[in-house]
C-alpha cells in the first residue's frame, strides 16, 4: 500500500514538473476545459482527451462522483502502460484513431472537438450498433464472444476503473470488507447501493 501511495505521489510530481513540448502545444491549441494537469504514461494528448471526454459522457458527475472525479482516466492510462503488451498498445492506439477518424467523417471533427449534441449522437450510435459482452462464469466468458468494439470496451473499462476506485468502493458503494455472517436474503433497501467487493 505504501508503495502505491509513493508511486501516486511520484506521478503527480512528474506531471507538475515536466511539461513536454507536445503538451505545451496541447495547452495552446485547446479551446475549452481540457487542460491536462497530469502526465500520462502511455496515452498521447489527443488520445487522453478522447478517453477522458468519453468517460465523462458515460459516467458524469451527479450527486455522486463521476469517472473523472475518481481519476478513472489516469488509471486507464496506467493500465494501458503497464498491463498491455506492445501489440495491445498498438491496437488501442489504432482503435482510438479510428474512433476519431469516424467522428471526423460523420460529424466533421474529432470527438473532443464536437459539440455536446454530436457527441451524444456518436455514443447513441455506438450503443445501438456495437456487440455486447457474453455473460461469464468463473472468470471466463461463455459462448463465442464476438469482437467487442472500442466504445463498449472503453465503457467496460471505465466502469471497472470507477467501481474499483477507493472513493467509490469505500464511500459510495456498500463496503463491507469482513461481512462475518452471510445474510442470504435481506431487503435491498437495507443495503442501498451494490456491494463494492
Amino acid at each position, binding site marked *: *500500500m505504501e*508503495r*502505491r501511495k509513493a*508511486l501516486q505521489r511520484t506521478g503527480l510530481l512528474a506531471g507538475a514538473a515536466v511539461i513536454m513540448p507536445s503538451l505545451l502545444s496541447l495547452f495552446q491549441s485547446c479551446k475549452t476545459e481540457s487542460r491536462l494537469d497530469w502526465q500520462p504514461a502511455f496515452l498521447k494528448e489527443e488520445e487522453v482527451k478522447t478517453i477522458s471526454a468519453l468517460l465523462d*459522457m*458515460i*459516467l*458524469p458527475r451527479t*450527486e*455522486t462522483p*463521476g469517472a473523472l472525479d475518481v481519476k478513472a482516466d489516469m*488509471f486507464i492510462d*496506467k*493500465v494501458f502502460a*503497464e*498491463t*498491455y*503488451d506492445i501489440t495491445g498498445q498498438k491496437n488501442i492506439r489504432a482503435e482510438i484513431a479510428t474512433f476519431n477518424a469516424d467522428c471526423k467523417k460523420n460529424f466533421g471533427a474529432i470527438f473532443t472537438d464536437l459539440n455536446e449534441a454530436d457527441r451524444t449522437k456518436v*455514443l447513441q450510435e455506438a*450503443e*445501438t450498433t456495437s456487440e*455486447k*459482452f457474453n*455473460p461469464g*462464469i*468463473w*472468470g*471466463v466468458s*461463455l*459462448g463465442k464472444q464476438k469482437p467487442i468494439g472500442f466504445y*463498449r470496451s472503453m*465503457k*467496460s473499462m471505465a*466502469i*471497472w476503473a470507477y467501481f*474499483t*476506485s*477507493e472513493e467509490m*468502493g*469505500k464511500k459510495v*458503494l456498500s463496503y*463491507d*470488507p*469482513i*461481512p*462475518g*455472517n*452471510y*445474510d*442470504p*436474503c*435481506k*431487503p*435491498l433497501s*437495507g*443495503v442501498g*447501493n*451494490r*456491494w463494492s*467487493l
Partner: protein
Amino acid sequence: MANFNIDAKKEKVYDAIVIGSGISGGWAAKELCEKGLKTLVLERGRIVEHVVDYPTMNLDPWDMELRGGLTPEEKEKHYKNIRSGWVGKDTEHFWADDAANPYTETKPFLWLRGHQMGGRSLLWGKQTYRWSDLDFEANAKDGNGVDWPIRYKDIKPWYTYVEKFAGISGEAMNLPQLPDSHFLPPMEMNCVEKHIKGRIEKEFSDRNMIIGRCAHLTQPHNGRGQCQNRNRCSRGCPYGAYFSSNAVTLPPANASGNLTIRPYSIVQSLIYDEAKEKVTGVRIIDSETNEAIEYSSKIIFVNASTLSTTQILLNSKSSRFENGLGNDSGELGHNLMDHTYRVGAMGKVAGFDDKYYKGRRPNGIYIPRYVNIDENSKSDKFVRGFGFQGEGFRGGNPANIESFGADYKDSILKPGPWEFFITGFAECLPYHDNQVTLNGDVLDKWGQPTLSIDAEFKANEKALNKQIQEDAVEMLQKVGLKDILGFDKEHPPGYGVHEMGTARMGRDPKTSVLNDFNQVHAAKNVFVTDGACMTSSSCVNPSLTYMALTARAANHAVSELKKLNF
C-alpha cells in the same frame, strides 16, 4: 505457530519421506508425524507459512497497484495458467512458473500447478463430497478400466476421520449416490436459490438441489476461526477457515516435533535397491543451488500431485524397472482423467429485485447425480453420470446496457439483475491411450525431462456433456428463468483441475500400479495417495477422497512398519 524446521542439512536419514505438501502430502505428513515417525517433507517450492505469507489476504482492489491486473511479464510467466481464468495479481504468487516448468501438449491439456508449501491446497475449490459404491463399482459393472480394489465400506471410516479434523460443512440428505459426511452446519442458500430449489424439486422428482458441501468452517473448529464470508480464500485465509495444508495439517505435523520440511527440493527420482527389493530413498535437486542430494527412509509417500507423481515414478528407472518404478503393468502414465467443465446453462430470475444478500459466500449449490444411478434412471446414450454446481447472484454487466450519462450512472450503482447458473461436471472414463510420457527433448530449468500430455475427452464424455447442457437448459426453463443461455466451452481436459489416474490402484499387479492400500505392487514401501492413484473419476470432486485414502494408507504404513514388514 512455531517456525517450521527446515534444517535438512545434517540429517539425511528419516523414518518417512513425503514428496509434496499439498492436500494429500499434508495429510501424510500429519498422520506419519503424529504416529511418531521422523518425517521429511520435500517441497518443490518455497515455504508458505499460514497467515505470515499471505501478502494479499486483506487487500481491496484499490490497494493493488493495477487493481488485480497483471503486467505482460507476469502474463508470460503464467502463459498457461492464465487460460483458467483464475490468475490475478491477488493470487499470482501461488501459481507455478509455466516458463520454468514447461510441459508439452500433444493434445490440448491445461496443467495447473502450485509450486509452494501447501501446493494447490491454497487454491482449490473446496467442494468436498464423499464418493459412493456407485463410483467404486462403476468400472467392474460396465467394464471400463479395471476394478477398484476397495469399496465404500473400506474408506467410509477414513472419510469420517478426515472430516472430523478438516471441518466439512453441509446438509445431511441420506442420498445413496452421495453419502453424507460428518457435517458442520450447512451454509445457507439465498432467496433465489431457495426458490429455484423448490421449483426444481417439484418439477423433477428425481432431483435434489442442495447447498454445496465444502471445506469451510461454519463454526470455530480445532482452534481455527469460522468463515467470514469474504470470498478471498485463494489469497490464503487469515482465519484458517478453509482447509489448506498450511492452516490445517502441517501445523500439527510440525507440533509433533517429528517434521522436517525441506523447501526448494525437486525430487528427481526414487532410489530402488534390488537386493532389498524396496526403495531406500530419493534423489533431489536443490532448485536454488542445483545441488544433488540423497535422502533415505523406510517408507516413501509420493504426493507430488497427479502428474508430477507419475513423472517422478517414470523418471525412477533402474535395471529392475526399466520403464519407471512400479511399471510392471505398463499402466504407469496411462488412464489420465479429468472432469468435463463449464458446460451448462444460465438465465435471469425475475421477481426478486427488492432482495439482496450480505456477505460473499465462498460456496454455491449442488445438484447431485440423477442419471444412471439405478435401473429407472438408466441412459441409453452414455455410461456414468454428472452433477451440477451453480449459484444465484445479482450480476449482469452494466457495460451491456444501451445507455450512458447521469441517469445511467446512477442506475448502475444499484445491484444488477438476479442471475442463476448451473454447470456440470461429468465423469471421464479411464482410457489407456489418455497418457503422459517422459519427454527428453524438452528439459526444464534444471535439465530434467518434462512431461508430454496426450489426452482427450471421447464419445462418452461428449454424450454426457450434450445431456448436461440439454438438462441444464430444461431445468432453467421449467423453473421459469428468462434469457436462458446454454453453454459448452468445449474445454479440453485439465480445465476441471481434477486430473486423476496415471498410477491406478487395482487388484491385479498385471493391470495396475498400486494395491488396495496405495502401495506400489512391486515396491511396497512406496505409497501413492494423490490423484494419480485413482482408478476411475466419478463425477464428484475428488479431494476429500485423497484425504481419506491418505490417512488410511498412512495408518497401514505405520502398522506394517511396526510389524517390520519394510
